[in-house]
């Protein structure tokens, strides 16, 4: 074209058309993403190695006192599964996970709905909301442990419970740790749901309000289906994390008193690190891993369905 005329008349400036351009065979182009992923795959393999080693340990009788282990087949599983302490751990873990996740979900949705009413208040409170979430759970547990102290802790003083009320007693310890979990992680559910609420289209709600629909009807029929994916993402993250809860419990109670808060990971820690019985700890972990994996699989498939349905509801 006219604009290109200058260089056309001065061909030496011409670039690629002189000489044969290099040819990149199809297989090498196909290889490109794989090459980019090689280091990441190396990391994955590096992490999977100890993982599989852990699975292997579960079939050995490996411990610090027995440094030359031999394969014992399913002995560890038999012994762990017939140990009432293991089943206590399962019960404690399940109670912790479902109670904490359930309450956090309900509370989180509630807080999100309340914050969504006013954008200004919402944005300011949001900053406060994320504070507990960003503090290391261990540090949060340390703070709460100070507050829980019957004599010197601030909670009994403020709530007027005297100096003998023990938050971490055998009966109350599990609920107190769940309380700390709520303190930390309810905001997680809340900010995810809040993000979802803010992304909702306005038209369907205005239309159904014109139609005279009540608040609860709109919440159930319109908002909940569209919010399901967001809620489910939050639930998945919370449930998975709760099933393997360790740090909060370990700092607050170290699994005690007795075995009142001995979750599966805390139990595994006791076995493999405290008692240096690696095989028994690994067996615990392997069983927990199967549980987590199964729950994750199920929830992710539910999430996929919900996302498709929500896309339909919005479209």
């Amino acid at each position, binding site marked *: 074209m006219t604009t290109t005329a200058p260089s056309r008349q001065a061909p030496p400036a011409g670039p690629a058309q002189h000489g044969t351009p290099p040819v990149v065979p199809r297989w090498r182009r196909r290889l*490109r993403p794989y090459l980019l992923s090689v280091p990441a795959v190396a990391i994955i393999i590096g992490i999977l190695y100890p*993982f599989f080693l*852990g699975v292997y340990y579960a079939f050995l009788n490996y411990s610090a006192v027995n440094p030359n282990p031999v394969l014992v087949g399913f002995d560890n599983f038999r012994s762990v599964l017939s140990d009432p302490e293991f089943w206590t751990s399962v019960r404690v873990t399940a109670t912790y996970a479902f109670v904490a996740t359930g309450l956090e979900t309900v*509370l989180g949705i509630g807080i999100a709905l309340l914050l969504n009413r006013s954008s200004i208040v919402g944005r300011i409170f949001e900053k406060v909301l994320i504070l507990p979430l960003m503090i290391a759970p261990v540090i949060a547990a340390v703070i709460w442990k100070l507050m829980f102290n019957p*004599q010197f802790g601030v909670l009994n003083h403020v709530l007027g419970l005297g100096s003998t009320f023990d938050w971490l007693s055998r009966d109350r310890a599990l609920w107190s740790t769940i309380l700390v979990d709520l303190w930390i992680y309810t905001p997680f559910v809340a900010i995810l749901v809040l993000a979802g609420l803010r992304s909702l289209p306005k038209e369907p709600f205005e239309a159904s309000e014109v139609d005279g629909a009540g608040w609860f009807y709109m919440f159930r029929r319109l908002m909940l289906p569209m919010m399901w994916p967001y809620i489910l993402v939050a639930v998945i993250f919370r449930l998975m994390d709760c099933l393997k809860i360790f740090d909060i419990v370990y700092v607050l109670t170290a699994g005690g008193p007795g075995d009142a808060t001995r979750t599966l990971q805390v139990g*595994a820690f006791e076995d493999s690190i405290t008692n240096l019985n690696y095989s028994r700890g690994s067996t615990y972990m392997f069983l927990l891993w199967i549980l987590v994996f199964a729950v994750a699989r199920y929830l992710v498939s539910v999430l996929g369905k919900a996302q498709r349905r929500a896309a339909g509801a919005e479209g």
Partner: protein
Amino acid sequence: MATEIKPGRKRLTLGSVGADLLLVFWFVFSLFPIAWMVLLALKTDTEQTTTYFAFSPTFDNFGTVMSQRGTDLTSVDFAGALVSSVLNCGGAVLVSLLIGIPAAYAAGRWKYRGSEDLMFQMLSFRFAPELMVVVPLFVIYNQTGLFDTTYGMIWVLQLVTMPLVVWILRSYFQDLSAELEQAALLDGYTRRRAFVMVALPLVRPGIAAAALLAFIFAWNNYVFPLILTDSNATTVTVAVTKFLGGGGQAYYNLTAAAALIGALPPLLLALTIQRYLVRGLSFGAVKA
């Protein structure tokens, strides 16, 4: 109650007042422990066991915590733990970025056999019980001399930082139109130059968010340093718990001061990336 759905239209009803009260309650609940931590950290040794709010504040505790104090319980090198934390987490994030950015780009840009498997393998690390990996690593590290070293920590922290970096950045690369890079290719730039010139600058916010969030989570991690370090490469989270002491005299004010110091970096970082927090926390699943 319809006001709850539609922002901007607020009516002063019994319901909305009740709702506000609930919010206020939650924020008292949320802030009280943090406020208490700050108060406690400012108390003197003689006041530390009181539960009163009136006291004569002192900043000595922070100094005491930072300078190693060889009493019965605080044989903790807290300043050293701070340095270790920075080194461990910084190193881990750096490695994750170097390795994760190309992988995230590949997974976000192309559909290729195994890309989904790779991504889900990454995600499974996020959800795997840590001890499953740490127990064997404890044995391996003791045999190879990686126990209680920064390198050992950088390696194991990949479990925390890598999935975060790869998943968040993949969602950013997916949002980026491939045609921008295609235009650069036709402008005469190689793929690498097109990536550096076009894609990289546009996902910079995503990289910053992923890096900072990964740093926060690495910083907040407890299990790995608890088991895989001793005094040399131990981190703030482990150091803070040591102030609780085991049986000896407890120093509440020092514990609170240490907790405050340990909690501060993540809090400050989190506030700087607040806009990207939701997307990061949900691994890119929720785009806010």
